[in-house]
């Protein structure tokens, strides 16, 4: 199972999160077949709330750890270098219905998951010795994967939504190091801001 998790799951995620996945896909029609690979937990919303709280609790520490590892002048110019200026970030409406909120949460977590993957990859090359940062990034990505699965389960079970169209952030692989640092910092700043709102909404 570990081999499967270590090899297949990242592959699926990479395929699933590849950059520019195309135009947004429509939500699965109500009458479409919705099946999950594993049975969903009975108390999904509780788990989702816990995972959101977990992410919200660690977002600031991850943000600090990240911009500290990038060196000066990042820590002293957070507003310009790490401001949450992510234009294509999926929206979230806290006052929507649960289904809407879950769909939006799914898009947000998918977006964040892909971006975190980019950041983790970049930082492993750029800061190979920043093990605590790597650990935190991996832990956050793990929680996001679980959260994504739970949200999908909830959407499928309760609202018969089997697929949600998602959009991803820019791929940083071709960008220069400073752009990678800056985009990562902006993304984590946005993540810290958004996850607080989302956790509050659920």
């Amino acid at each position: 199972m570990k081999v499967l998790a270590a090899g297949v799951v990242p592959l699926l995620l990479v395929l699933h999160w590849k950059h520019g996945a195309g135009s947004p896909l429509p939500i699965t029609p109500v009458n479409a077949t919705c099946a999950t690979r594993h049975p969903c937990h009975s108390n999904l919303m509780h788990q989702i709330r816990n995972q959101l709280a977990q992410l919200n609790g660690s977002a600031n520490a991850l943000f600090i750890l990240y911009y500290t590892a990038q060196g000066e002048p990042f820590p002293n110019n957070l507003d310009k270098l790490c401001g949450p200026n992510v234009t294509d970030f999926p929206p979230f409406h806290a006052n929507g219905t649960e289904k809407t909120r879950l769909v939006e949460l799914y898009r947000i977590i998918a977006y964040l998951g892909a971006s975190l993957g980019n950041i983790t990859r970049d930082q492993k090359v750029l800061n190979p010795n920043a093990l605590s940062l790597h650990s935190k990034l991996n832990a956050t990505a793990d929680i996001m994967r679980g959260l994504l699965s739970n949200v999908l389960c909830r959407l499928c079970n309760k609202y018969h939504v089997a697929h949600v169209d998602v959009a991803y952030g820019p791929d940083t692989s071709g960008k220069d190091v400073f752009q990678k640092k800056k985009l990562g910092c902006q993304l984590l700043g946005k993540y810290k801001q958004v996850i607080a709102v989302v956790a509050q909404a659920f």
Partner: protein
Amino acid sequence: MMNFSLRLRRPSWMVDSKRMGMTTDFQWLLLTCILLYLMNQVNSQKRGAPRDLKCITNNLQVWDCSWKAPSGAGHGTVYEVCIENRSHSCYQSEKTNTQIPALLPGDHEITINRLYDFGNLISKFTLNEKNVSLIPDTPEILNLSADFSTSTLHLKWNDRGSVFPYHLNVIWEIKILRKENMEIVKLVTHNTTVNGKDTVHHWSWTSDMPLECATHSVGIRCYVDDPHFSGHTEWSDWSPLKNVSWSPDSQTKVFPQDKVILVGSDITFCCVTQEKVLSAQIGQTNCPLIHLDGENVAIKIHNISVSANSGTNVVFTTEDNIFGTVIFAGYPPDIPQKLNCETCDLKEIVCTWNPGRPTALVGPRNTSYTLFESFSGKYVRFKRVEAPTNESYQLFFQMRPNQEIYNFTLNARNPLGRSESTILVNITEKVYPRIPTSIRVKDINSTAVTLSWHLPGNFGKIKLLCQIEINTTNSVQELRNVTIKGVENSSYLVAVDKLNPYTIYTFRIRCSTETFWKWSKWSNEKKYLTTEAIPSKGPDTWREWSSDGKNLIIYWKPLPINEANGKILSYNVSCSLDEETQSLSEIPDPQHKAELQLDKNDYIISVVAKNSVGSSPPSKIASMEIPNDDLKVEQAVGMGNGILLTWNYDPNMTCDYVIKWCNSSRSEPCLMDWKKVPSNSTEAVIESDQFRPGVRYNFFLYGCRNQGYQLLRSIIGYIEELAPIVAPNFTVEDTSADSILVKWEDIPVEELRGFLRGYLFYFEKGERDTSKIRGLESGRSDIKVKNITDLSQKTLRIADLQGKTSYHLVLRAYTDGGMGPEKSMFVVTKENSVGLIIAILIPVAVAVIVGVVTSILCYRKREWIKETFYPDIPNPENCKALQFQKSVCEGNSPLKTLEMNPCTPNNVEVLETRSTVPKIEDTEIMSPVAERPEESSDAEPENHVVVSYCPPVIEEETPTPGADEAGGTSQVVYIDIQSMYQPQAKPEEDQDNDPVGGAGYKPQMHLPVPAAVGDLAAEDDLDKTAGYRPQANVNTWSLVSPDSPRSTDSNSETVSFGSPCSINSRQFLIPPKDEDSPKSNGGGWSFTNFFQNKPND
């Protein structure tokens, strides 16, 4: 041409003439003008002929000559140029120039003939190569490209070498201009050669500023250096500029991006932007801006410092945003150190190294290594793991068949440079075998086994050196080296002998090659138990007779594992007498003694140990002991863990000595253990885990002769002496007033815990509740100590004590191990009766002696005393005035009637001083004889009182009034000493209470009594008393008595004595006039009172 020459030369002269001064210049100028004028006049005659011939060349093969046409020459004019001194070749041209082949060095006459309709105008010129200029053609840049990542310009041009007839050196000059204002940032020369062929040349230049920052332009010109050409050589014209510029998009960008540079170098960063840049900084340090074209800016960093892993951030701040780049400053790779290559199995070579100084570059910029083997041409690359922590730098190289010598080169490379290290190895000498595995052991016999193991590797061509470590639980470690011929990936087998039977061995193996390089790591341990063999020796035996002497108890010790050679199953005990052997019993193993009922014959007892393989040789011992009369008991003390016994060498002792020991407190037969030592030994250290300090042991040394033992020495001893655990029990046997006899008992051996060395006895005065001897060893002075070292002494008498005193006694025993506890007792000495008696008798005796002496003295001085203190009072009987008739009282001879003889009254004169407190020294007892009657009259009236005084008389029942005239002639003078004994003065009541005591003479002292009633009562009492009393009614005598109230009124401090007087002398004692009588000085006590009653006594 001459003119041309002149024109060319004169300025140079002029230049020279300037050096001579202004005057000379002027002269030359004037001369030149004159000559020009003359020349013009000459030429005017030739007006219309070509002039000013001038030739240049760009390829040294063809000269391009030109001249000036005459002013009148128009279109259609044809010139014929002829070279005269050659083969008269002529060239016609409609232009004012023509190309002629290059002429040989030297002067050549050139004629230019202007051909026109009206005739010919010929001009002649002398042409020399020296007058020809070599000016190459303007070079043309074929290509100018830019590598923006490295900020490098690549220039490409054609040298057009084919135009030159032979090999030439060409100098190229390249200029690089930057920005729109064409600042020259670089001007370099580049030397090439031309060899008759067109060649494209390349030149590259790396800019210190990123090429993206500004437009860069490049121009080039050349200079042909021909040493054979004697003419004038000039630079070509500059080629047209070629530009390189970066096409900025709309986004602001900072350059260079992600560049890796050497620590300490200088670098320029620029920001290509449309916005206004406010500031720039590297890390936290602000940098001054250098403005480029437009809004572009740059900063220059000098001596950049090493970067962190994530690089050094360089940022440019605009109003709304921050743009930046990351620079990685690090070092080129250090030379790989300690490069070492070895093999474990002769299949694969492992090369390890130390990277040396860190480069500060990580990730994709980290150093990459390549291991290259020159003989085979093979190489391997170092694949870096992602997390470089504790990274081991090693590379594996597959060995080549039949190749033993390898020449490795390790190349290290990073973006900043490269380095390398080499090593040449004979790999068969660098074998570091792997760990031997699959260790197996098989029996050969009880003392030998075979040992096999597996060792991977192609060792078929070499020999292996292996080391076998043999361990047993009891013996020391043993290493055995074996050399084995190597095989291909196989197991190896060796025989290991000289082992002990029935012994657990632990084997482990490591290997190397015969040409030793390194030992492999030790293999896992393999335990193995060898097979059994017959016991090598009989058990160590001893025998003891039982306490009743009827049974012989045979003891033996279990055989050690190295002698038992297997598991001992049983012991056979047999005895023999006169070569007749009798097997007695077979004792199973756990039991190690046997009791035999034997008579007193000297039997030889044999004990044999048996295991599954066989029986041991017998151990024999004689049942009887060889007597020894000369035996003394000695003492010995051990060394803490054992005890050393020594003895003299005895050649008679043929077999072993035996030392037996036991706890002395145990009953017979006493045996804890025994030890055999060789017969040639003279000492033995007895050690046992059972030994305990403070326990007394008996040691017996036996010598052995013919299997019979003789007791040589008996020793009592301690392994270590300790202090006694109890105090000696002592009692007080006897107590007297000055001594105490103390008796104590011995301390039991078990509680003594050492050899008793003596007792310490402490004593001091003290009660049970208050005294406690503290700090016995501190040497307190009030504690007396007696050290009793005579151990036979069991009593102690403490003398010189005080009677009826409590003493605190303390007794403690000591050994060499220390002081034992103390036992104390309180004893009170008896009272000293003789002293008491003496104490009583001595004062009594002294008192008696004093009394006797006093009596004797008084007796001897009685006359003086009497005269002094108790003078005779005139007997009234002697007074004729009071002489009674004998008839009246006849028969009563002592009683004589008062005779009315003329009586001389006794006068008592009291001298009184006015001082209230007279001193004793002033007191003077005067003789009764009135020595100075005259002086009394001279004395002041208030200083003395004259009292009439009469000696006491026997109370008579019938006083006779006529006796007043009779009286003795004695006269007493008293000095008042009332103040001296005033406290003894009694009030009047006391006197009244002792009327009888007042018989005889006594001073009639009266203290002032205020109450008149009391006085009256006193008067009544006085009537009842014996002795003298007033012979008249006191009421009629009131004025005479000093104790009358009036007397107290007159002067309370001066109380006069009353003077009882005989009736006969009454009239004389009391003067008739009270007013004139001196007043008494108060109630004093007269010394005469002391002797007042004496006569009556």
